[in-house]
C-alpha cells in the first residue's frame, strides 16, 4: 500500500476555502500536545487563549487594537505576494514609518503647532515606509538581488537605527535615562474612538485599507495586472504588463501601509517612540496574509484571529504562567499548517494498493 500526492485535474475551490480551517484545527491539536508536555491542562490553556479574551470589552477592544497593524500590513503584503514579489521586511518598513512620523512629533514637541501635525506624521510614515521598501525592490529589478534576503536584512538596519535614535539624539531628557522619546503632544496623537477606551482611529483606517484593496484587486486594471503577473507571468507579458514595474508598485504600496501602521501604532497605543514598539507585527502579518487567502476580507478575519492569539498569549502568561514565546510557536505552527494544507488545493492524497499478481510468481 502506498500513499501518494497526486495533481488534481482542476484546483479545488472547496479546499481553498476550508484549508485555513483545517490548518487551525491541526494547530490546536498540536498546541494541546505542547501544553501537555509543558505540564498544563490543554483544555484550560486553550480556553484562556481563545475564549477568555472574547468575554470582556477591554480585551475585545484590545484585539481590535492589535489587529489594526496586522491587517494594514497584511493587505499590503498580499499585493506583493499576489504579484510574486516576496516582501519579508514589513517589520523594517513598520519601524521606519514609525521613526519618520515620530520625527515630526519630536520636532514640534511643545511648540503649539496646529492640527496639521498628525496628518503630516501619517503621510511621513507612509512615505518613508514606501521608500524603505523600494530599496529591496529596486535591487531586485535593477540587479536581480533576491528581495527575500534584502528586505529581511533591512529589518535589522531599521531596528538598530530606531534604537540609536531613542538612546541618542531623541531621548527624553526628563526620561530617567530610559531609551524613549518624550510622550507625544495631544495634536501628535491618534485619537481614541471611545472615550476612556483604547480603540483608536487606526482601526477605521485599517477598514478603509481593506475596502480600497478589495476595489483595487477586483475592479481595476492595476489589480488585474498584479494578479496576472503572479498567476501566469508569461501571459502577463503577452498582455503587455511590466512585471518589474509591478514589483516596484506592490513593494511601494506594502511599504507605505506598513509605515502607516508603524506611525499609527507609535502615535496611538504606544504614545511615544521606544524600542520594542512591535511584537513582530511585520512577521505575523505574513501569516495573516496567507491565512486570509491573500484576500482583503479574508485578511481582516485572519488579522482578528491572530490578534486574539496575542491577547490570549498575554493572558495565558499571567493566568497560567505559560511563556509568551508559546504564542510565537503557535503562530509559526499555524503558518506551517496553512502552507501545507494549501498544497491540497492543487493536489490530493491517494492510497494505491498493489495489484495482486495473477501469475504464481509470489510464493
Amino acid at each position, binding site marked *: 500500500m502506498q500513499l501518494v500526492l497526486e495533481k488534481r485535474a*482542476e484546483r479545488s475551490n472547496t479546499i481553498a476555502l476550508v484549508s485555513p480551517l483545517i490548518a487551525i484545527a491541526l494547530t490546536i491539536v498540536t498546541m494541546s500536545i505542547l501544553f501537555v508536555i509543558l505540564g498544563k491542562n490543554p483544555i484550560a490553556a486553550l480556553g484562556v487563549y481563545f475564549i477568555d479574551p472574547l468575554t470582556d470589552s477591554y480585551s475585545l477592544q484590545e484585539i481590535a487594537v492589535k489587529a489594526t497593524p496586522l491587517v494594514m500590513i497584511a493587505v499590503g503584503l498580499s499585493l506583493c505576494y499576489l504579484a510574486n514579489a516576496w516582501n519579508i521586511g514589513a517589520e523594517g518598513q513598520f519601524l521606519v514609518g514609525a521613526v519618520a512620523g515620530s520625527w515630526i512629533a519630536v520636532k514640534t514637541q511643545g511648540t503649539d503647532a496646529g492640527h496639521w501635525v498628525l496628518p503630516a506624521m501619517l503621510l511621513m510614515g507612509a512615505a518613508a515606509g514606501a521608500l524603505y521598501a523600494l530599496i529591496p525592490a529596486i535591487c531586485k529589478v535593477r540587479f536581480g538581488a533576491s528581495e527575500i534576503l534584502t528586505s529581511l536584512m533591512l529589518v535589522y538596519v531599521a531596528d538598530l537605527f530606531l534604537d540609536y535614535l531613542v538612546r541618542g539624539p531623541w531621548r527624553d531628557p526628563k526620561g530617567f535615562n530610559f531609551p524613549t522619546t518624550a510622550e507625544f503632544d495631544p495634536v501628535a496623537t491618534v485619537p481614541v474612538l471611545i472615550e476612556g477606551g483604547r480603540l483608536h482611529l487606526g482601526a477605521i483606517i485599517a477598514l478603509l485599507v481593506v475596502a480600497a484593496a478589495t476595489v483595487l484587486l477586483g475592479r*481595476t*486594471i*492595476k489589480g488585474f495586472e498584479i494578479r*496576472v503577473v503572479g*498567476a501566469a507571468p508569461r*501571459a*502577463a507579458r*503577452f498582455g*503587455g504588463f511590466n512585471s518589474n514595474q509591478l514589483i516596484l508598485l506592490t513593494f511601494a504600496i506594502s511599504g507605505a501601509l506598513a509605515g502607516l501602521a508603524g506611525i499609527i501604532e507609535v502615535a496611538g497605543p504606544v504614545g511615544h517612540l521606544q524600542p520594542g514598539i512591535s511584537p513582530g507585527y511585520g512577521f505575523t502579518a505574513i501569516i495573516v496574509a496567507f491565512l486570509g487567502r491573500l484576500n482583503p476580507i479574508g485578511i481582516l478575519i485572519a488579522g482578528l484571529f491572530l490578534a486574539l492569539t496575542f491577547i490570549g498569549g498575554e493572558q495565558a502568561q499571567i493566568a497560567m504562567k505559560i511563556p509568551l514565546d508559546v504564542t510565537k510557536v503557535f503562530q509559526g505552527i499555524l503558518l506551517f499548517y496553512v502552507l501545507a494544507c494549501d498544497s491540497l488545493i492543487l493536489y490530493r492524497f491517494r492510497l494505491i494498493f498493489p495489484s495482486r499478481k495473477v501469475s504464481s510468481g509470489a510464493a
Partner: protein
Amino acid sequence: MPRKSSSRGVVDFRPFITILTLSGERLAADPGTVIIEGIAAGHLSITQRRKLGAAFVPEERLGHGTAPRMKLSENALLTGHAASRMVRHGFIDTAATLRTVDRATETFDVRKAKRDPEAASLSGGNLQKFVVGREILRNPAVLVVSQPTWGVDAGAAAVIRQALLDLAAGGAAVLVTSQDLDELTEIADRIAVMFHGRLSAPLPTADASREKLGLLMGGSSLDQKDTAHAVGA
C-alpha cells in the same frame, strides 16, 4: 503591412521567436523593421502595437495566450485592455469583458461548461477558438498568428482557418507563421520562407511548389544559387 494585402504565410522553424519579436513582447527589432498601418513600430511595446490595430495569437494557448487559472472574461481583458472599452479610468467594465466572451462563444462555437469558466477547463480546440476569436473580434488591421491549428481537432481547425480567411477577405493583413506546409498552402495567398533569420521573397501560393519551398527551406535562394549558402553562415 498594407491594409489591402490578404493572408500571407511564413514557413519558420522558430515561430516562437518570430511572434515574440513581431508582437513586441521581446523588443529586439529596429523601429523600421515592424510597420503597422504605415507606422514604424519595432520599438513599441506590445500594448502600443495593439493600439495601432495589431493583434497576436501565440502558438501556446495555455500559459502564454491565456492565464490558465483565470476566467475567460479575465483572459478577454488580457489582450482587450489595450484598445477597447473594457477599461474606463482604470476601472474594469466586467459587463464588457463578459460580452466579448459571449460573442466569441457564439461566433466561433466555443464549447464550455458554464458562461465564464477558467481557461484551463476548456479543451485545447475550444480554447484555441476562443483565443483566435478574442483577437478577431477586436477587428484588427493586422493579425499575426503562430501555428493557428497546432494540436487542434479537425473541426476546430476548419473553423479557425475559415475565420482567418474571412478576416483577410475583410481587408485585414493576416500573417501566419507555421511549420505546417499543407496548412499554409491551403490558407495563404503568398508564402515566404524563414531560413536562419532571413526571410525569402514571398512566392504566390500557386507558384510555391513543394520543391521550391523545399529548396528555400534548405537555404537556397531560388535566383542566385551561388550566394545562397553565405546566408546561413
